[in-house]
């Protein structure tokens, strides 16, 4: 069966001080084992996106991250896309922020899917106090952004006292409803298609961790940011304990609790982070 997916989109991207606006329309055809894609030649019907929002977010981050911190990389993009697969049509609007902030020999990685800059404010205020490496604390609270980055690594290995879920809502890369269900192992029910230029793959979308214990203690050290992308279940983190701030490497072996208040982050094929205690 030949499957045809079409997409038209506009993106405005701020990239380290420069701005680019892109519009394009493309299609992907899957015909058995063969995958083909290219521009569709269709006119883009999406109205122009102003630069003000991405510029505003970029400027706000540039003002928050000041000496002695250095903003090594800052990419802010806003996009609107119209998708169609067979008779199914849908539209989405996305905002993405990626920043790398440096202090001495440490680099904090920030990825956001909205314009709430609370995480950036916290990092900007605490990162300049970062001291020497310490051993990982025996119990550690994770900020939602850190927990969200961890979730894709938990697929298939989540501890038994928690449940890793795919959140329901919206449509996947083949126009099918994204269903809510437990995610333990492949095959996954939905398709992830980040671009018309890549083959869609079955992946858990919009991960969410549910715990029977939702109370999150706030009197233990907290990991406020990632210092490197997760390496499986090993996390390199910027931690804070009172006024002390330090880098530590944590191997996740147990999850004690996870709050029910969540925020979406662009890790993997989407991940809802919540405050979590390891």
């Amino acid at each position, binding site marked *: 069966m030949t499957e045809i997916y079409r997409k038209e989109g506009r993106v405005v991207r701020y990239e380290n001080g420069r701005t*680019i*606006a892109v519009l394009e329309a493309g299609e992907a055809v899957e015909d058995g*084992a*063969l995958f083909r*894609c*290219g521009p569709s030649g269709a006119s883009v019907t999406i109205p122009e996106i102003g630069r003000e929002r991405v510029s505003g977010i970029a400027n706000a981050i540039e003002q928050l991250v000041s000496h002695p911190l250095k903003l090594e*990389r800052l990419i802010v993009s806003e996009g609107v896309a119209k998708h169609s697969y067979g008779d199914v049509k849908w539209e989405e609007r996305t905002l993405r922020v990626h920043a790398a902030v440096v202090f001495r020999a440490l680099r904090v990685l920030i990825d956001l899917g909205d314009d709430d800059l609370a995480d950036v404010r916290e990092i900007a205020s605490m990162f300049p106090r970062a001291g020497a490496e310490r051993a990982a604390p025996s119990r550690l609270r994770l900020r939602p952004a850190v927990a969200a980055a961890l979730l894709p690594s938990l697929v298939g290995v989540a501890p038994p006292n928690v449940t890793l879920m795919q959140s329901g809502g919206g449509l996947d890369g083949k126009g099918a409803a994204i269903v809510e269900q437990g995610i333990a192992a492949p095959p996954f029910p939905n398709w992830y298609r980040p671009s018309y230029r890549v083959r869609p793959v079955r992946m858990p979308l919009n991960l969410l961790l549910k715990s029977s214990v939702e109370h999150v203690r706030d009197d233990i050290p907290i990991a406020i940011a990632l210092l490197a992308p997760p390496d499986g279940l090993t996390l390199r983190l910027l931690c804070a304990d009172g006024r002390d701030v330090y880098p530590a490497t944590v191997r996740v072996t147990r999850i004690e609790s996870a709050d029910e208040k969540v925020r979406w982050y662009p890790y993997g094929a989407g991940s809802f982070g919540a405050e979590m205690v390891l």
Partner: protein
Amino acid sequence: MNEFFLVTREEIWTGGPKKTLLEERLSHGAAREEAGIVAASDERDDELLALCNERIVSARELLPFLAGARVRIVVAARRAGAFTRTGVTMVLGIGQQAVVSTPLTAPADYERASRAASSKPKGEIDYRGIPIVWRGGSASVLLHEAAGHPAECGGAKAAKWPTWLSVHDEPEIEIDDSGNRCGIANLLAGEQPRAWRRASFSDLPLKRMSNVVVRQSNAPFELSPKRIEIDLVSAGHYDVLNDVVTIAVSAAELVDGRSRRTLAPFRIIETRACVAAALSGSEGEAIRYPGVVCSSEGQELVAGSHAPVVTTVFHD
């Protein structure tokens, strides 16, 4: 107004007499820069598309001779200002080995990768303390990371390089992706590459390496009876923050007198200062190494690589 047009055709095949097409991608577009704002769209340039169509046909003719390889052919035709140029890249994957080639060099690179892929590793090794011989131009990857990327970033700490060594970016193109005339950059001296390059019409141009050439002049050279000989490198990385170079070696042998054994893939992880201090000798003219697919700021670009035989010794 600065205008840039690009058409790329990409095909992924399994090579051999029964060649099979797995994936096919066409991309075209234009980027126009005015007053610091770039506007890009997927408009088509028929002349560039015709050039791509012509070049990909001739690249496909090699496929029957590349049995067992996964072959990615990328043809790109670009125009910046009044200057048009085309390029063809063939990435050959055989087992765990991959080389970046061109239609002209594909047969030799295929042989080289096939040979490496057919060797069964018979041991792991700690490379420290053992002289390493970087053969077949592979030292260009080490210096791409240790000298090239720091120069791209600018502001890297100075390193104490051997006086017999030179490393330059020598673009083989006359005009870059921003319509500027290209020039040679002395990477060891920290000069940024002069060519602005972009992976697609929707990418912003960046100053990136395009053709790294390592040379030696009156270098010492001594071949230790016990040594590691590196033939292929699968990846490299430079971390500007910690000034650390990582090289993933995919094909190497341990030579001890007359005995040779294939080593399992291993990683060399050293500070740039240690890389500079480890460079112990070199011999001969620069040899072409299969190119490097260099990823930086999300843009994958192919860079040419050339180096003479180089020796290093990394100490504990």
